[in-house]
């Protein structure tokens, strides 16, 4: 189908964009790459009155490479991350993930900020940024604030982004030289949204370990017991399997069916084994 009628504005600064968003008399939606929003508009699942195009805002395209973190503007595309055109804080984890995200013609337009803002439960970046202990920086009418990505996404397509706020940047801590990462995405076809997604980050030098499940019927799910097992090093597969299973069962609000519970266990096992191997 075709998208419904809509107004369109392309502000020149982030402040102007936030003003437009805060003072719009119709439902205003921010558009960056539009790879989910335009699909939803074409399917008439979304029909905003005004689109505020932020894709070209210079503030949202900048990348800062500091001693302890890389800060990516919200409108950095998946393709830019895939190609290594922006600094990588994650020793190849983020480029590797970007390359599996949708198709190239989606990645050239889709942005990291857009992925976070939508927080599709099966999307990669909310889970990956939570696993990397990244922060998201929001800019709105009342100023700037920052939140941990692990707290930013609160549920299925639900976040703490206020109506008058725009995601400005994501600040991703740099991994130590000897940090290890694991990543497994289970889906039937290359580029599809995940049926199960597991990300493992082990950075002993910073005392940091985290195992996160994506596509988990809600916000990215941190597997606490499993993360503690990873700290202790190589384990027998049965101990690992039961830790993952018990972490999943503790999240009783997720209502995993047997098939998906098993998929998550397989994804997490394989991702942990990448780190411990």
């Amino acid at each position, binding site marked *: 189908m075709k998208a419904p009628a809509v107004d369109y504005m392309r502000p020149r600064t982030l402040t102007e964009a936030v003003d437009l968003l805060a003072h719009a008399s119709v439902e205003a939606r921010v558009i960056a790459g539009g790879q989910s929003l*335009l699909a939803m508009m*074409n399917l008439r699942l979304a029909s905003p009155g005004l689109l505020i195009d932020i894709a070209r805002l210079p503030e949202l395209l900048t990348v800062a490479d500091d001693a302890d973190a890389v800060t990516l503007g919200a409108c950095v595309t998946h393709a830019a991350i895939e190609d290594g055109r922006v600094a990588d804080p994650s020793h190849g984890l983020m480029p590797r993930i970007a390359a599996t995200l949708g198709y*190239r013609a*989606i990645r*050239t337009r889709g942005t990291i900020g857009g992925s976070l803002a939508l927080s599709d439960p099966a999307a990669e970046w909310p889970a990956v940024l939570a696993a990397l202990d990244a922060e998201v920086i929001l800019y709105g009418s009342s100023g700037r604030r920052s939140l941990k990505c692990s707290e930013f996404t609160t549920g299925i397509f639900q976040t703490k982004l206020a109506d008058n706020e725009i995601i400005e940047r994501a600040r991703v801590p740099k991994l130590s030289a000897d940090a290890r990462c694991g990543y497994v995405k289970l889906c039937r076809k*290359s580029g599809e949204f995940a049926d199960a997604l597991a990300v493992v980050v082990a950075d002993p030098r910073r005392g940091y370990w985290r195992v996160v499940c994506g596509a988990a019927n809600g916000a990215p799910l941190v597997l606490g017991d499993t993360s503690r097992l990873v700290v202790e090093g190589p384990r027998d597969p049965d101990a690992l399997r039961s830790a993952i299973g018990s972490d999943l069962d503790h999240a009783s609000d997720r209502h995993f069916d047997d098939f998906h519970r098993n998929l998550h266990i397989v994804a997490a096992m394989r991702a942990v084994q990448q780190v411990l191997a």
Partner: protein
Amino acid sequence: MTAIRVRINGSEVADDLPPRLSLADFLRERRNLTGTHLGCEHGVCGACTVLVDGEPVRSCLTLAVACDERAVETIEGFGGDPVMAALRRTFHQNHALQCGFCTPAMLITARDLILRRRAGSEGEIRDGLAGNLCRCTGYTNIVTAIAEAAKEIGKEAPNAQ
């Protein structure tokens, strides 16, 4: 209505467009460039793939007004492009199309794979084509044609980017 200026296949075009108009509909209905095909109109089938500033995009998921001051290349373009010339020949020789609906976007996607050096093996090519559906299920010959063109281009210009 929103005024835009866009370069299409090398020619400067100015128009005044309703913002909801997709790049695909702009090309097909206003510029009569009907080689860009619309299958699903929600980013799954890949039939509408064109280049914007040299990078492949879904023209059904791109607003025409967002292409203001950009350069768009459609299948009607690519005159004098050596990679596209090789692909057109190998598609022809390998019978890499049946109904032809997916072909323009297959060619544009294949060209991008070859230029990014992602067409080195059958597996890599199949992976790179995951976002382009062929409902005649003619993938085998499409993959062969791309592999052949990639080999040819690689030989001619080992440092081609």
